């Protein structure tokens, strides 16, 4: 175990700060000093410390007051009280408030060594506890999917079960719910885990390009086909093909894929020789494919072919129990990636994140936390760091008439564009005169 720890010395006497600083440096500990309670609290906001040595007698905020604040906001920090005024009462009060130990000035070097030994031992116990706690948290996640809510626990149970079969899987859920993560987890747990996992976003590729990407082409098959290229259906051979946004593919592509799924053979573009393929198909969509079938946009036979097993991922607003866990996970992730010391999030901020509806789901939340971590000036994320989150619209709409909703929407657009009529009218898709008429008719006013 590395016994080096981060220590802060708080004492109004410079000579004491210097002596202890020099002493702890001889052990290779990370040491910082503060001349007063407020300075110490300011430094705690900037970076984490494990131990504080605090003088009890300081002008302004005394050591006991500082101890109380530290124990309230940073309960994990161990505080050793130093005093030349060795009254039993202050020592007892300090220990009752949560001090780990106390030292009477001047003390023998080996007394300090003994205190440090105890602290390091306590730190080890804390680290062991955190390790075990981390182990427990592993149970609340599955690969990179995080959550401990009931819908997520169900999902964790389904993944290993469906992974063993070769049946096609359709994952449904709103954008940002983690469909690709689930597909990857299924692949990772499947007998095909050692073989390729290829993900294609069907919504991002035009039909012709998608055909070439999936089926490959022979040299000279079309203008620009300067060499023969294998398609993903062939490259993925033995592995898992993940087709995201399957609801966006054309009718022709649906037919072509249906044929591949039935025959397990592909014809690359410009070739008449079939190539045998073997892959497991996982598809995903944010659309309601049944509705698309009724509209005649999606083929029913293809739908049943890709939908042997259906997994629906809940929207984040349907599993709000997971928000605090996700917030902590993303905060740690981006704190590590950006090497910023952001390791705390206030209860108010968690309340705000929980109240928000997250239309973009986990992806939106990840982006929000990343932004907050990058811009945060302290180690604690608070409500101010999330001021960019717009209040949720959905609950407001409940029980309202169409006219009321229209009025509120127009008002919101006007506020968003600082009541610039031309810009607001453009966004609303109406002309300026009409917007002026509505403002007058509905008595819309700035700042309401």
């Amino acid at each position, binding site marked *: 175990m590395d016994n080096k720890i981060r220590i802060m010395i708080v004492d109004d006497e410079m000579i004491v700060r210097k002596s202890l600083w020099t002493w702890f440096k001889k*052990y290779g500990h990370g040491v910082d000093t503060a001349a007063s309670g407020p300075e110490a609290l300011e430094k705690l906001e900037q970076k984490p410390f494990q131990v504080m040595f605090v003088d009890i007698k300081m002008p302004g905020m005394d050591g006991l007051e500082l101890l109380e604040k530290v124990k309230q906001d940073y309960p994990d920090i161990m505080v050793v009280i130093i005093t030349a005024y060795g009254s039993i009462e202050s020592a007892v009060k300090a220990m009752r408030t949560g001090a780990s130990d106390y030292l009477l000035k001047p003390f023998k070097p080996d007394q300090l060594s003994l205190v440090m030994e105890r602290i390091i031992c306590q730190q080890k116990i804390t680290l062991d506890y955190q390790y075990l706690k981390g182990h427990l948290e592993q149970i609340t996640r599955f690969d990179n999917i995080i959550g401990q809510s009931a819908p997520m626990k169900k999902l964790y149970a389904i993944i290993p079960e469906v992974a063993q079969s070769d049946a096609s899987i359709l994952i449904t859920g709103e954008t940002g719910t983690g469909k690709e993560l689930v597909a990857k987890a299924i692949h990772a747990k499947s007998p095909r885990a050692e073989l390729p996992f290829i993900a294609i976003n069907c919504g991002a590729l035009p039909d012709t390009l998608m055909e070439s990407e999936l089926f490959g082409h022979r040299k000279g098959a079309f203008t620009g086909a300067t060499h023969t290229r294998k398609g993903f259906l062939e490259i993925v051979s033995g592995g898992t093909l993940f087709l995201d946004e399957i609801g966006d593919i054309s009718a022709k592509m649906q037919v072509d894929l249906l044929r591949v799924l039935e025959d397990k053979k592909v014809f690359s573009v410009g070739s008449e020789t079939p190539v045998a393929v073997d892959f497991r198909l996982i598809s995903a969509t944010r659309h309601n494919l049944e509705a698309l079938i009724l509209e005649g946009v999606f083929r029913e036979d293809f739908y049943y072919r890709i939908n042997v097993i259906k997994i629906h991922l809940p929207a984040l607003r349907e599993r709000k129990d997971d928000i605090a866990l996700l917030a902590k996970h993303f905060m740690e992730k981006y704190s590590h990636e950006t090497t910023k010391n952001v390791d705390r999030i206030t209860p108010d901020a968690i309340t705000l994140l929980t109240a928000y509806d997250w239309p973009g789901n986990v992806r939106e939340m990840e982006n929000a936390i990343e932004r907050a971590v990058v811009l945060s000036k302290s180690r604690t994320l608070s409500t101010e760091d999330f001021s960019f989150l717009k209040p949720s619209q959905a609950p407001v709409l409940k029980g309202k008439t169409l006219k009321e909703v229209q009025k509120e929407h127009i008002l919101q657009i006007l506020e968003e564009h600082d009541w610039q009529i031309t810009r607001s009218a453009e966004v609303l898709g109406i002309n300026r005169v009409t917007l002026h008429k509505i403002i007058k008719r509905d008595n819309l006013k700035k700042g309401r």
Partner: protein
Amino acid sequence: MKKQIGVLPLGEVPALVLKVITANITAYYKWPAAVLPVGTIPASAFDDRRLQYDAGIIINNLHAWDFTDYSKIVGVMSQDIFIPIFNHAYGHAVQGGYLAIISLFRLNRNTDGSLPPPSLFYARAAKVALHELGHLFSLFHCDENKCVMHFSGAIKDLDTIPFYLCRDCERRLVP
């Protein structure tokens, strides 16, 4: 060529102790060392309430002295020294610096108040000097109790540590 390490007597110090310290520095750090002419302990370092010398003030004063021919200096004095906040110190050095001092005052008494044999007294002085010199070579206190960099808070601890550095500290040694 390596610059020598200077062993500087401050006030009256037994000549044999200085020789033992010098020999041990050369033996354990493989570094040439020499005894310097006697220097005077700065009077300003004396704390008349504690009746001890402030080790930090002495080192600050030594900074003004000319030691250009020496890479590091280990001051040796017979009087008791302290570091503010602690009630005494066997030695003091600034981590990674070039000046250290040691005090012989508490080395010539056993825990029970009896006098140690001269050889034990010399051994203690050499260990404290080697330990403080280790700090000048940027070595930290070591967890290994078979290492001269292991912290000794009391005489009995000093008697149990060896003269040498453990393997880890030897490896970390920055000349």
